[in-house]
């Protein structure tokens, strides 16, 4: 290996690492706020990439119908809960309608706009608009009523949701993979190193999103409420922060980040209905590097995962995944040695 190859691999690793960093941040966020180990994160990656692929072809992606179905189901469940709780129907009805409105409007708008073959940027925005609300709706449907259960129960729920979404992905998109056009065909070359426009977009978008998340948590009231819920759920609830809406918000953010990651990565690799799982798990490896608790730690871990992956694909490409996933073991060993005393959560 010479310097050039090392440089190329490094660049490759950093580009992928930037994606893993986004996913790792979302996973840490969801875990901190809701204690859910969010295995289905990767499904949003695939949903994002393949929804865009559908729009490219001028189809109406099935995810649009899925969004409408989720919204209706959530509204029905809310209504049943309201009737059971004997809450005043006028107020409850207004709240339910208010919550169901955004996904329904987005879904119907998408039905109208999908066949129009919008320019790429329009399709990207439409994709994000369709996939993002699914996060909050999934929280409502699968997790909300179990919010106080143990981490273990929530993890098993996550596995169930992952199964269901993967299977639905197969129904929606079929078994064939898709690859999207590059967002930006420019490229920068410095000697033998070529930095493609897509890589620049990936790194730039990840950086911008990390900055935005930092601002959100530090400066905005919603962000502070999420942080409060992460530190102490009961305390936050006593201060008037609804832990249900904190959960929905964190899942919505996770879905947004997942879909964005899918859009960013889809021009560089072919995405299948089940590709998201492995990509999401690499985000997990990064998040575990940081003990599922530190945002900067997760970002650093993600870059390391990206680098490990790109270098091992050069030396032992067949064992690329083995090396990436086995690297979690020494990290766990190090963590357990450094911090052995953990009472059960």
């Amino acid at each position, binding site marked *: 290996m010479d310097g050039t190859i090392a440089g190329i691999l490094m660049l490759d690793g950093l580009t992928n690492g930037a994606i893993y960093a986004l996913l790792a941040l979302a996973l840490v966020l969801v875990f901190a706020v809701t204690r859910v180990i969010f295995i289905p994160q990767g499904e949003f990656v695939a949903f994002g990439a393949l929804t865009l692929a559908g729009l490219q072809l001028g189809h109406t992606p099935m995810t649009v119908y899925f969004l409408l179905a989720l919204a209706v189901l959530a509204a029905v469940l809310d209504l049943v809960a309201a009737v059971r709780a004997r809450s005043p129907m006028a107020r409850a009805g207004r709240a339910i309608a208010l919550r169901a409105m955004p996904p329904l409007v987005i879904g119907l708008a998408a039905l109208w706009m999908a066949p129009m073959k919008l320019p790429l940027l329009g399709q990207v925005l439409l994709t994000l608009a369709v996939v993002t609300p699914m996060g909050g709706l999934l929280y409502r449907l699968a997790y909300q009523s179990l919010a106080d259960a143990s981490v273990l129960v929530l993890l098993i729920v996550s596995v169930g949701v992952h199964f269901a979404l993967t*299977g639905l992905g197969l129904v929606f998109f079929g078994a064939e993979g898709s690859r999207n056009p590059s967002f930006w065909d420019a490229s920068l070359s410095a000697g033998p190193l070529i930095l493609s426009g897509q890589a620049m977009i990936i790194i730039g978008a990840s950086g911008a999103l990390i900055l935005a998340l930092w601002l959100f948590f530090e400066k905005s009231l919603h962000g502070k409420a999420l942080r409060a819920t992460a530190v102490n759920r009961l305390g936050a609830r006593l201060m008037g922060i609804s832990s249900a809406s904190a959960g929905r918000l964190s899942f919505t953010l996770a879905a947004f980040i997942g879909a964005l990651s899918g859009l960013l990565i889809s021009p560089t690799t072919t995405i299948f209905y089940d590709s998201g799982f*492995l990509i999401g798990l690499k985000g997990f490896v990064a998040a575990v590097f940081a003990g599922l608790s530190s945002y900067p730690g997760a970002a650093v871990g993600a870059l390391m995962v990206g680098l490990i992956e790109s270098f091992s694909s050069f030396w032992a490409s067949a064992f690329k995944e083995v090396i990436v996933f086995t690297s979690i*073991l020494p990290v766990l060993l190090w963590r*357990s040695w450094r911090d052995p005393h953990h009472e059960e959560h």
Partner: protein
Amino acid sequence: MKTSVSSSPDSDQSRQPQVSSPPAALATPRPIAARVLGAAALLLMAVLPLLPVPEFWITQANYIGMFALVVLGLVLLTGVAGLTSFGQAAFVGLGAYATALLSSRYGLSPWLGLGAGLLITLLVALVLGWITLRMSGHYLPLATIAWALSLNYTIANLDVLGKYDGILGVPALQFFGISLADGRAMYYLIWLCALLGALAVRHLLDSRPGRAIRALGGATVMAEAMGVSTFRYKVVVFLIAALLASVSGWLFAHVQRTVNPSPFGLRMGIEYLFMAVVGGVSSVWGAFVGAGVFKVIEDQLKELLPRLLGSNGNFEIIVLGVVLVLMLKYAPKGLWPAAQLLMARRWPVSSRTRDWQGAAPLPGRPHPARGEPLLRVDQLRKQFGGLVAVNDVSFTLHAGDIMGLIGPNGAGKSTTFNLISGVLPATAGRIEFAGTAVTGWPSRRIARLGLSRTFQHVKMIPDMTVLENVALGGYLRGRSGTLKAMLRLDRQEERQLLAEAERQLRRIGMQDHLDELAGNLALGPQRLMEIARALCSDPTLLLLDEPAAGLRLKEKQALATVLRQLRQEGLSILLVEHDMDFVMGLTDRIVVMEFGTRLIEGTPAEVQASPAVRAAYLGTEH
């Protein structure tokens, strides 16, 4: 949010679905009707292959038996110990590949393959468990996901294991010259393994190590204080689960006569967990129900869904995923416990047979001579960040005394207890117990020297009977290990332990509650049960944290009488209590604490006369 162990009856957790709830009514014998049903089922299973049943159903039954063997491990791991693994399928793979490689490539006996598979599974599980089980519970499942993926990709890329094609031509098993190539012959071996596995797990759960394992799900602090190494038992449970999976893999390889990577992937690992949750994650027979329901339903879905959707694919995972979430939401205990509940309505469960009458008493511990210094606390200090909870406290307790530790709320009394018993590590200072410096020791090691305790917030295993909870206190007085318990070679010692537990419960006036589930008791009796549990360890020093809270006046008086009698027998007691009549009438000496520091020490009369104590409790006049 901490899922604290204390379970006052109205605590939040008790109403939430818990995957880990130890099996209820485990040791209680089933009534006759249920026994007859069980015997009939067993008989039917025994003659099934002899009947003209289509081959299809024999094959199904074989798969159900092999699946159930894996799920049994998950029942122990997830349902009882509150840990979980998505990598059980990978352990199945280890067992399958070990025997396939040895028997087809190298022509060795499949029985040697079984040994090799178990050995390599043991090694891998030991390394994985050692790395992850010290950390909080959710790292184990994440690590098993990573390891399941790694192992699958490794197998699929190794030339020696035939890559994605796997190994073909695995020979059939031979059993004393009888060929087990036929599915009907294999049926007997598979179900023998599965039923023996189930029996061993049931035996284990109703034993000394079993009680320790049942504490893993949410009472680790208490178990440690009773002398149990909870880490060791977590590793043990993980190993048992892995080995059961490995045996299933060995059977699998010789049933299929070929192995390839796909049945040992992460997806199958998740499906094993699905079976456990559906059948009843904390019940042994639930493993069989779950495996059966899964196999039948999956087959139907594999037929039906592609026809409905008009294309081929693994669409059944949609249904499996949705069912999994719905089960956890609406029936977290699973199908078997629900069926059990229905049966119990028809045929009520009788209480445990008392077979321990006349068991030889357990040997006791010599008590130190009255008046010798037993516990010396010197400059003990505990800081939580900037807060000094215990500030250089010193006192000495002499053998045969009852000493009171009193003070206003937040004075640091319970923290002092936790430091002395080793539940919390001290920041500085020295603790000497029975002539040994125990500073920095874990609680299970201090317990060996004869220190036992109760907790301010009752810590117990709510789904275990009162008798079993108390018997856990006698853990250190028994020796039987996991293997002995599985083989039922521990019965004599078990009778001694239960007899001792009953003796302590009688002494404390709880003889009418032996078979009640501990979680159903009111707060007062729960505290008494904790005292009986502590006494069951035959301590020289008893630490009681607010023993009289929640008791009525009569019960308090009875408790005081028992404590006085224990003092007569040479036991020493250190107690925290807020009821001043109780403390003043009972103790020989009193230490008063305020804001983490020791205010004064003296006889009850001296303390009552002290203006400083009055100021601490009632404030000063200015």
